[in-house]
């Protein structure tokens, strides 16, 4: 989804992951509702969720994505993308926020959960579905998942914080695999498609 944020890095990581897996196909940036009909999977990048919500409501893309998600479109959301997918969100400092969301992932997300930019960090993560090798976690003003509801499976924890979940073909991550140089999560997502 190409409104705002770290779009190009996801595009590149997806292309590299497709090459690694020998998948033929096209990775592209989409902004229009009709483009949503042409895709087999969608990545919502990091950036600012408020901005993506406003722009996505403006041209109707959010509604179209929501409809396709109900029909089983695989979607991976990272950082702001996770927030966009969540049923409910609130901000750690400001509290309840009323921003346009997709509301397709059965979780409650706390925005800016680890603090401001000064508190952003890198940390190796254990993600059992990817095997034993740690995954380089990059957390930038990251959210975390406070509650999981029906059908949600936890993929990754950081102490008491849930930072990765899966619900059917939906993947929600609080960190940035596209900045990590590790393609395993992109490959894992491609396997869901």
């Amino acid at each position: 989804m190409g409104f705002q944020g770290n779009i190009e890095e996801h595009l590149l990581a997806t292309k590299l992951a497709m090459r690694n897996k020998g998948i033929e196909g096209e990775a592209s940036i989409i902004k229009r509702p009709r483009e949503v009909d042409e895709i087999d999977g969608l990545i919502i990048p990091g950036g600012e969720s408020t901005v993506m919500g406003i722009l996505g409501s403006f041209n109707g893309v959010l509604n179209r994505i929501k409809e396709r998600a109900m029909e089983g479109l695989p979607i991976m959301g990272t950082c702001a993308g996770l927030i966009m997918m969540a049923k409910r969100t609130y901000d750690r400092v400001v509290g309840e926020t009323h921003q346009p969301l997709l509301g397709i992932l059965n979780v409650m997300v706390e925005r800016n959960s680890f603090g401001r930019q000064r508190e952003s960090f890198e940390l190796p993560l254990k993600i059992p579905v990817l095997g034993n090798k740690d995954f380089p976690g990059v957390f930038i003003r990251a959210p975390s998942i406070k509650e999981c509801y029906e059908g949600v499976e936890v993929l990754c924890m950081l102490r008491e914080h849930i930072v990765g979940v899966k619900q059917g073909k939906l993947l929600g991550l609080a960190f940035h695999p596209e900045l990590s140089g590790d393609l395993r999560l992109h490959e894992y997502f491609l396997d869901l498609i």
Partner: protein
Amino acid sequence: MISLVSPIEKPKSIKIERMEGLELIRGTTLVKRGFAHMQKHGVIMDVTNVEQAQIAEEAGAVAVMVLDKLPYDVRKAGGVSRTASLKVIEEVMDHITIPIMAKCRIGHTYEAKVLEEIGVDMIDESEVLTPADEERHIWKWDFTTPFVCGARDLGEALRRIEEGASMIRTKGEPGTGNVAEAVKHIRIVNNEISKLKALYEANDHQELIKEARNLRVSYEIALETAKLGRLPVVNFAAGGIATPADAALMMRLGCDGIFVGSGIFKSEDPLERARAIVLATTFYDEPEIVTEAQKMVDEKKSMLGMDTKNLELRMQERGN
């Protein structure tokens, strides 16, 4: 892919915390430049109080820049222009969810320290404020908080990156509502990068070394830029952007996003204008939407602006 690797081995910005046998690292180049990446394709708006910050957030700003006075008013007021009141910055931090940036004076390490201490998300070492050090900029590798700096040409941009800037913006001519200088600066940067790239592709390293000397930068960073064919960090447009069409023009010229200073809150239609500039920035490659955005603003309500030829104060000449 934009470089996320630090040329400095162990910058002081790095803070390591051990936690249950794991190493949590803050202030890395990846996390600092990564923050700038999250702003891409967005609009960062200058604000002077909570009300303006809330309007900016509602309109779809990706971040706000808190100032004491908008650049236009700095120009009018004269005198010494310093960082904003910490109380105002803290109030803004308590009321909005998007990132908050603030400006400090060029070379004023302690204004920057104070801004880092209260927790702003990014510091702008800015020519809009009165420079504190005529010789040197801040050594930004010492800070956990990322910095953005202005540049008029490639040499300036790369020198700032060598000092640790995580993001660059054109200088333009702040507070004028005139986009001409920003256009000039991005053109210069783009042309100089094309030249480096051509030398790299021709495998002419001797000439590349000479170019690095002309630019007054290290060979390493000149080589990296030549290989990438773009700046090694995110590059925004700033200085004089006042309308949706201005924003779309700067995106078309290859900027990663937009700073709007006086253009929004010195106009008579700030909310509509802010929304329209956000739309035009994201959809710059779709002329129908830029047109729709441009219709949302009334030229009679734009800030009057000024010609940049006869200015008494040329802010862009501060720092180099």
